[in-house]
């Protein structure tokens, strides 16, 4: 089942002489449980793709369908509701609201959706526990390490039965070990039924995805082949990677 559908999405910034095509005719479909990476150099339109997919921006043309709902024509409030119920974001370096503890940050989208504080908090606590962060629940963002902050951000992005996780260079500011654990957590969320899109220029991160879409100058130029099934991996005839 497709959670995110981009249909011939284009985005043009500016007008007249300063017109710039950020995205051109992007088609993308992300199913429940799958992790898609968008890879491309700086300025290829990766981030724009993500903000459009998350209803933060309107495409100039084309359609975005999130969890069956068409974003075009939604009111600002409807989009806000869509974001807090369906979409979770993880950004590169700025995720948590200062002044709120980890667990408050995690339960904030639930509270914004009208769930009473106590209930939201216990759900947030459960999400943190699930990601092994229970002991950091009462810490403020500035008391957490960079890796912990990103992990709390992921907990917040998946809390409350949300189905779409969008991450923009989620481990950009982290070392590779911490970056790996962030990707591992996103993958875990996918195994739990979330559809995830990770935007990155880093092949190491992209290699965690089931599918990697290559973006260049706002166009999807290529993508990886579907991964070999477990049977294929066990089949000795299929070449396994090796270094020899």
């Amino acid at each position: 089942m497709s959670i995110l559908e981009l249909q011939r999405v284009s985005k043009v910034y500016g007008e007249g002489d300063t017109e710039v095509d950020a995205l051109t005719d992007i088609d993308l479909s992300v199913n429940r449980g799958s992790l898609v990476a968008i890879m491309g150099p700086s300025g290829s339109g990766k981030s724009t793709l993500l903000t459009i997919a998350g209803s933060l921006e309107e495409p100039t043309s084309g359609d975005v369908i999130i969890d069956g709902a068409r974003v075009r024509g939604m009111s600002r409030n409807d989009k806000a509701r869509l974001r807090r119920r369906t979409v979770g974001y993880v950004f590169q370096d700025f995720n948590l609201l200062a002044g709120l503890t980890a667990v408050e940050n995690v339960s904030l989208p639930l509270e914004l959706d009208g769930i009473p504080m106590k209930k939201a908090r216990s759900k947030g606590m459960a999400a943190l526990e699930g990601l092994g962060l229970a002991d950091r629940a009462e810490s403020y963002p500035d008391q957490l390490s960079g890796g912990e902050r990103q992990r709390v951000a992921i907990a917040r992005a998946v809390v409350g039965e949300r189905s779409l996780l969008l991450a923009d260079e989620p481990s950009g500011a982290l070392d590779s070990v911490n970056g790996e654990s962030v990707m591992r957590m996103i993958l875990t969320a996918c195994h739990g039924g979330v559809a995830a899109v990770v935007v990155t220029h880093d092949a190491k991160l992209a290699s965690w995805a089931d599918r990697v879409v290559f973006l260049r100058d706002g166009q999807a130029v290529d993508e990886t082949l579907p991964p070999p099934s477990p049977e294929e991996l066990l089949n000795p005839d299929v070449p396994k990677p090796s270094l020899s």
Partner: protein
Amino acid sequence: MSIRHSLLALLSEGPKYGFQLRQEFETSTGDVWPLNVGQVYTTLQRLERDGLAQSDDVEEDERQKNYRITEKGGEELSRWLRTPPDLSEPPRDELVIKVLVASRLPNVDVFDVIQVHRRYLVQLMQQWTRMKEDESHFDLAFALAVDAELFRLDSVVRWLDSADGRLRRVSLESVESTMDSTFALPSNRRRTGARR
């Protein structure tokens, strides 16, 4: 990859039989580098010849021979661990040559060539990552070896990215200069891809 020194390292833990050495070598490198039997015994014979290891000489069958490290062998191992590998000579990399050739051929889209290789490399990395993914039987040595491979592949991808960018700039400049001389059009009115 020096099998010679890896075997010496294994022997430095204590005397070992030939078959045991092969087994341990494969586990210690996380099964990333499969080793054929012949390689192991040839290497062991050479070690014995150079006085770096010695066998008890009881058995004729190499698999049953018990090997131990000599003092000279210990010194050699220690020297080797500290000697940096020779990186000053660039390896004659096939991929680099392919891209260089493609960039000179008029009828070949070099960017297409680059993308084919990039995709292949990323797919390769996906496979390695997937091996690492399953944490249930986590193996430190294996993870280290896989990381090494991922970093190596990643560096190649990055080289492709930078080659891509460099070639693109050169082609853009040459296009602009032709346009300037012939049409004098307002350049890059619609330059694409402004935002990250």
